[in-house]
């Protein structure tokens, strides 16, 4: 059974200028041991989507659809259940992790806090023992339990954040831009760590990133979001190497293959900027920046359609919609 499932999830924020649709109808499933990537630029709704899993969105946001964590719908749970589910069933490694640790508390205290709060039968000694195990699990020496955050490097802090997310043995782990502020070498280490944890412990892992190349190397499946919608979905390597949606093609081309002479002195980008949520055009939202747009793209917003057996894209240039 899927550990995480989203069915037709919509999130709308309220603002003075009227409702702002941030996520518009997203479906996904995530099985144990599976790694799913969500790619997209700032403002595409990817972090909002993640916030629904633990009901972390602001109180005035309207959320519809179903978000099932291990079969239970988070959106309709009582608050007590939501609190119990946070950390223990699903947890998030937040963006900007390097600044998320409390600078004046030792690492062991910060790691023990969720354990002691969530598991009443665990005493301090047992919690401390688990902290050392957690640190070792993320490849850090257990003695760092006594350290303060400023005594650690960026990569070490990011590992601590991962250990923190794992503290209450969740089944679903969400990593929001886990490597953005890190160096290439440390990025490679952290990605290796995340994927081995997911595979070894049968966790369902969702990685959110603006960097499609990072997701392509780490994930099984990838969703590409644009203006709150999934515009392409499929096996990670396929999506990166043979993108079907013009937007995915642009994202993929932004990270050149070193050695490929066609990208030498020819960086590829897209004209224009990502749309702000709420500023949607008629028809396909990507139309204003799309190199392949035609008049009929303005007529209706395309849904995902099968491009291959496993790959789907929301573009009218992909075959014809197949009724299912």
């Amino acid at each position, binding site marked *: 059974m899927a550990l995480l499932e989203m069915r037709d999830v919509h999130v709308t924020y309220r603002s003075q200028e009227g409702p702002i649709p941030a996520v518009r109808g997203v479906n996904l499933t995530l099985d144990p041991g599976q790694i799913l990537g969500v790619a997209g630029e700032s403002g595409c709704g990817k972090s909002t989507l993640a916030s629904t899993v633990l009901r972390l969105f602001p109180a005035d946001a309207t959320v519809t659809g179903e978000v099932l964590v291990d079969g239970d719908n988070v959106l309709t749970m009582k608050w007590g259940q939501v609190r119990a589910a946070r950390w223990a069933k699903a947890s998030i490694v937040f963006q900007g992790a390097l600044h998320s640790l409390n600078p004046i508390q030792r690492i062991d205290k910060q790691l023990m806090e969720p354990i002691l709060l969530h598991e009443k039968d665990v005493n301090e000694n047992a919690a401390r023992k688990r902290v050392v195990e957690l640190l070792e699990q993320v490849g850090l020496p257990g003695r760092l339990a006594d350290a303060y955050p400023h005594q650690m490097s960026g990569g070490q802090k990011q590992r601590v954040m991962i250990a923190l997310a794992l503290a209450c043995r969740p089944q679903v782990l969400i990593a929001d831009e886990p490597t953005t502020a890190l160096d290439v070498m440390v990025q490679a280490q952290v990605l290796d760590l995340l994927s081995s944890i997911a595979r070894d412990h049968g966790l369902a892992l969702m990685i959110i990133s603006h960097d499609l190349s990072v997701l392509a190397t780490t994930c099984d499946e990838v969703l590409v979001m644009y203006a709150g919608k999934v515009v392409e979905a499929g096996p990670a390597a396929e999506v990166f190497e043979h993108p079907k949606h013009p937007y995915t093609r642009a994202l993929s*081309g932004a990270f050149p293959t070193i050695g490929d002479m066609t990208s030498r002195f020819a960086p590829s980008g897209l*004209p224009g900027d990502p749309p702000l949520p709420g500023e949607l055009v008629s028809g396909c939202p990507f139309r204003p*920046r799309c190199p392949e747009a035609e008049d009929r793209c303005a007529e209706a917003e395309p849904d995902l359609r099968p491009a291959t057996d496993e790959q789907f894209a929301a573009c009218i240039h992909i075959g014809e919609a197949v009724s299912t």
Partner: protein
Amino acid sequence: MTDPLLSGEDLKVTFRARGGGQARALDGANLSVSKGEIVAIVGESGCGKTTLARTLLGLEKPIEGKVWFKGEPLEYSGRALKRYRRQVQLVLQDPSGSLNPRHSVYEAVAEGPRVHGMADEVGQVTRALAQAGLRPPERFFLRYPHELSGGQRQRVVIAGALALEPEVLIADEPVSSLDASVRGEILALLLKLREELQLTVLVVTHDLGLAWNIADRIVVMYLGRIVEQGSTEEVLSSPKHPYTKALLSVVPEIQHTESIVLAGEPPDPTRIPGGCRFHPRCQELAAGTAAAVADKCTTQDLQILSGAAGEHQAACWLTS
């Protein structure tokens, strides 16, 4: 080879570290850049790439070595530095952080010309904005940073540098905070500026893909030294130094043969290892493929690369 426009000779910069030690941030580096060239300085954080850029800008004064610009050594008097900065400009990373949120685009770009008492301020601002691809420029005069997208903000920062009609731009991670689709446009702008204005560009980055996209030459740094340099094609297609090989192997791409993920983080510039400074992390040494020179690796420091333009050089006992 033409005379270099800007060069650094045996540059050494130290900082006092917490706890009284000394960090050798730049431990002997030679680099020369010709007019119209785009050179990428790459490496991990703490490798000294930003210190090298700051030293070339005159923001750090080296304890040893000299910076040369147009055949003259850089002087560090206030007046000389001010004159120098009109010609060698810095483009900061993260445009959201480096623009004053309460200054309009016009104000932000006009600041440089004003400080330097340039004539025709409006004309300079208009020209600079247009060169940075913000057209029509007048439309942007009264906009504020929060009304602009990330890509437009980065263009404003670049326009601020261009307003002084510099000969050299030094850009520190110019696209790392930008969205993927915008990144290519900014890189294309740097290429266009080189073409149209004969601008010389030094890019500090950890992104080898960026270097492949725009740089003529690459300089790879590790712990305060340049460990490999050469044309971008040579360095990225046939790297000589084990460190460069490792960096290349972790660029996220599918076709990888095998990633060489070096353990640990770059070591501490307050405690630079003896022998080859890379030896504690070197995968060749660990795998025994460097057995023939292993003695030298652990005991003998390597010669500082001369930085001669047009040569592919690496500071490694295996190749020297």
